[in-house]
């Protein structure tokens, strides 16, 4: 078995009386796409916030690339190669698309001119090449999702955490976005993605983790997870397994 890029050991996080994440453990293999699925309120976004350093876990450890990174600040993690996107997109609204991406590119390039140039390249890679000088505030939902992705990629990450980059996109926009994610994985970037769009999960992911009520309740290849019909139906609702299987068929 290949060395794991990210190991999560029994992470717990409590908000007041609510146990948002309950001893969640899993591993992420390098160079793969891993999907984290589960119903609303399962604790997926909380888990992302913990991995990316925005929240500190109450219990548990996170080991990335052999080093314990539990409790490290987000910017330190970004420097180590962990990038994230936000479920609710967070553009720098007053800046242009190019300037937005350049903030990410600055991580590796102190020089302003270099960073702006690199931002252009990343923008083309995610399909924003024609909107470079446009204000980020004028982008559509799909455009903002791409911008979110581009900024994260501009930091030259080894691991990206994608928090529902497909949410809010219509089917044709999803069809356009899926190959972009695939391309990023082909560059050798490890991807951990939260996703509700089952079709995309089945097509893209090599490993699926199911999170419910803060716990990992199932884990495996998409086919293995989909086959566990009981688990899926109980937590994702009526017909979810069928959708997963049909999604797998398309992929």
């Amino acid at each position, binding site marked *: 078995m290949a060395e794991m890029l990210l190991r999560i050991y029994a992470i717990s996080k409590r908000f007041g009386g609510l146990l948002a994440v309950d001893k969640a453990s899993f591993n992420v293999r390098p160079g793969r796409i891993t999907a984290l699925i589960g119903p609303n309120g399962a604790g997926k976004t909380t888990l992302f916030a913990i991995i990316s350093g925005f929240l500190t876990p109450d219990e548990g450890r996170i080991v990335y690339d052999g080093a314990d990174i539990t409790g490290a600040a987000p910017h330190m993690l970004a*420097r180590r190669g962990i990038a994230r996107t936000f479920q609710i997109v967070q553009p720098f609204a007053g800046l242009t698309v190019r300037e937005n991406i350049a903030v990410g590119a*600055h991580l590796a390039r102190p020089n302003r001119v270099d960073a702006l140039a690199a931002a252009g390249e990343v923008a083309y890679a995610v399909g924003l090449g024609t909107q470079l000088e446009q204000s980020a505030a004028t982008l559509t939902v799909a455009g903002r999702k791409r911008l979110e992705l581009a900024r994260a990629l501009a930091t030259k990450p080894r691991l990206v955490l994608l928090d529902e980059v497909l949410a809010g996109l219509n089917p044709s926009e999803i069809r356009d976005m899926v190959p972009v994610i695939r391309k990023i994985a082909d560059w050798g970037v490890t991807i951990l993605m939260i996703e509700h769009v089952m079709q995309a999960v089945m097509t893209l992911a090599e490993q699926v983790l199911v999170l419910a009520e803060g716990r990992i309740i199932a884990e495996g290849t998409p086919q293995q997870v989909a086959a566990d019909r009981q688990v899926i139906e109980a937590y994702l609702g009526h017909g979810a397994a069928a959708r997963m299987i049909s999604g797998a068929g398309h992929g």
Partner: protein
Amino acid sequence: MKTYLPIFVVVAVLALVPFVTASNVVLNFLVVTLLIALAGQGWNLLGGYGGQYSFGHAAFFGTGAYVTAILQVQYGINAWFGLLIGIAAGALVGIVIGALSFRWGLRGSYFSLVTLAFAEVLRIVASVAPITGAGVGTLIKLDLRPEAFQFQSRAPFYWIALGLVGLSLIVVRGIENSRFGAYLVAIRENEDAARALGVDTFSVKLAAMIVSAAITAAAGCFYAQYFLFLDAAIAYGTWISIDALLAPIVGGVGTLFGPLLGALIIKMLGESTKLVTGGAPGLDLAIYGLLLIAVVGLAPRGIAGLLSALVPRRFRPPSVPEHHHG
């Protein structure tokens, strides 16, 4: 170098003023305007570019002023050297306030309040501490020699003030073109997103606070040399905190020339109000308040923003949609 050209042009044009007029009234007005522009540029770096609205820039202004004055009066240190120490002292106060408030994650209104409180603490201390002359104030001895940073005429003062403003413009332009500047603006726009992209928001904000404090302290040092008298209500008074934020907000917050433009507008308004009302106290400042509300309500991007809004923009919400279903 192209981006610095407007600065050189503006400074060069303004430098000609003493050759056009020798009127002390005009020069005095312009010196005070430049002083406010300088203090405002300090505020603008932190507030306009960084989005951290300080209500207590008097803390830096007053520290610069007092340090310059006290070093001369009490320790006989040369005024030019005192200027440098004054700027450094202002920066030091910036480090203390910045480190405390940013370390604890103060944002928004809380940051405004805490800066205001620090300035007030300094004002109260200055009004009782013996070293500042307490209630009596500090008077710098008249010594009209350039080596003592004192001049017979207003023109040299004017050029020095202009030089300081020019320097601050170059510094801020340099920051605009740098990674530090990009990070600072990113923090203003969205702090969490900036952190996720590897921005050490604490360090960037602290650095901005230090440069901001230094620039505003320079204005304080210059004030001390120009007026040769300080007391707590002048040096640490709320008037300077307000002028320092009013100038960039009126002129165009987060823009290079905003503070200069704004200082010019508010000082001209103040002077013309004084002329109309015959110098009765209060009314000129009431106009400032009115101006502040008007700018916030009607031209949130300042006068500079208002001017550029008159030019057609590329992206606008369609007030009349191009197609309409009947």
